[in-house]
């Protein structure tokens, strides 16, 4: 999710990641790859019959009263640059 001023300056940028996270239980390093993973230690994936709620608070810099907020929901395939964009919402939000 990003928030940008009218002239395109980014004033906020954050991400949430929804997926299982596993280690080999021998260290605390997260691993990808079935042949080395042993156990999930955390699961932030989207679950059936559950809503994933988030609330983001964006404190604007001095002088900024309006931003374009863009929320992009993506399914990453193997690496961040390779993704399917499921939904993209852009809103102009003003304090005035």
């Amino acid at each position, binding site marked *: *999710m990003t*928030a940008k001023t009218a002239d395109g300056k980014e004033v*906020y940028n954050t991400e949430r990641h*929804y*997926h*299982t996270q*596993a280690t080999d239980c021998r260290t605390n390093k997260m691993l990808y*790859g*079935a*042949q*080395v*993973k*042993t*156990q*999930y230690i955390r*699961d932030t*994936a*989207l*679950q*059936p*019959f*559950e*809503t*994933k*709620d*988030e*609330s*983001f*608070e*964006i*404190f*604007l810099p001095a002088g*900024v*009263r*309006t*931003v374009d*907020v863009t*929320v992009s*929901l993506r*399914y990453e*395939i*193997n690496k961040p640059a*390779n993704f*399917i*964009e*499921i*939904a993209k*919402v852009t*809103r102009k*939000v*003003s*304090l005035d």
Partner: protein
Amino acid sequence: MKFLKPFFVVLLVMIPISAFAEKAKTIEELAAMYDSSRCKECHAEIYARWENSHHARSLMGVQDGLMMTPLAMKGRTPFSPDDPGKATLDTFPCFKCHLPQALVSADDAFAVDYANALLAQDKTRVSKLRITCIVCHNTKAIIHKLSEGQPEADVLYGSKDVASHDDEFFKKIKKGSIMDHAIMCGQCHGLGPNLEFENPVQCATLYGSYEHNYISKGGMQSCQECHMQKVDGFADHLIAPNWNDLDGTKKILQDTISMDVQTVGMDWLLKSKDLKPLVVVNTKINQNAGHRIPDG
């Protein structure tokens, strides 16, 4: 001998699994033993859908990544041999699901051939190994082996009995007990860590998610009801998603996952005379699948 070569090739393709006393020692031998290409003569629609499925390229990974390559590379995984010539079937725990026929119809020489093909990144050869019609409709069709016995060599298992099946080797169809049950898929789209190996591995956990986080919340559909809905009158053997079809997969994801976004701008009075300009963005993401997303 030169004129005999075509004869050997044809013979290999036409011989059924049961006729092989010897175990497959090469990629081509195992591929031929489980070749299902003749199925399309009568089941063209189903075969065409299957050919685009991940089952038809079960060793190629998502978007053709040859995901088992690290297993053949020295030092890359606990299973990796020092030399590809020392590979055995145990080198590749992924065969359990990605190539189950290897465990019943191939020997360690096959594993050596496969390891070398991986190191050479020989996608042409590796792609010959597939979860074919025979694998699901015979090899993996029976799980109650103490009650029902092993899959019969000349029988395919489906959703109904067919007394006579017009095929040279699989002469009849029997109704399989689990063919329309989620556990048919759950055999491979797994529960969690596979602890039977010398080192545990953890791949797909879809069925565990289905059992413990979908059924437990009142979900009642099977995998097949969503992923094998009828297309032109036939159960869809594409078993989507197909990650090589980004547009088709995008549509599935959009049908499955929804996002609501609410925004508000305000001057937040955090303390007296100290207004802070604030934008609040609330998001709600829902999904209607019978399992966690992502999983496999």
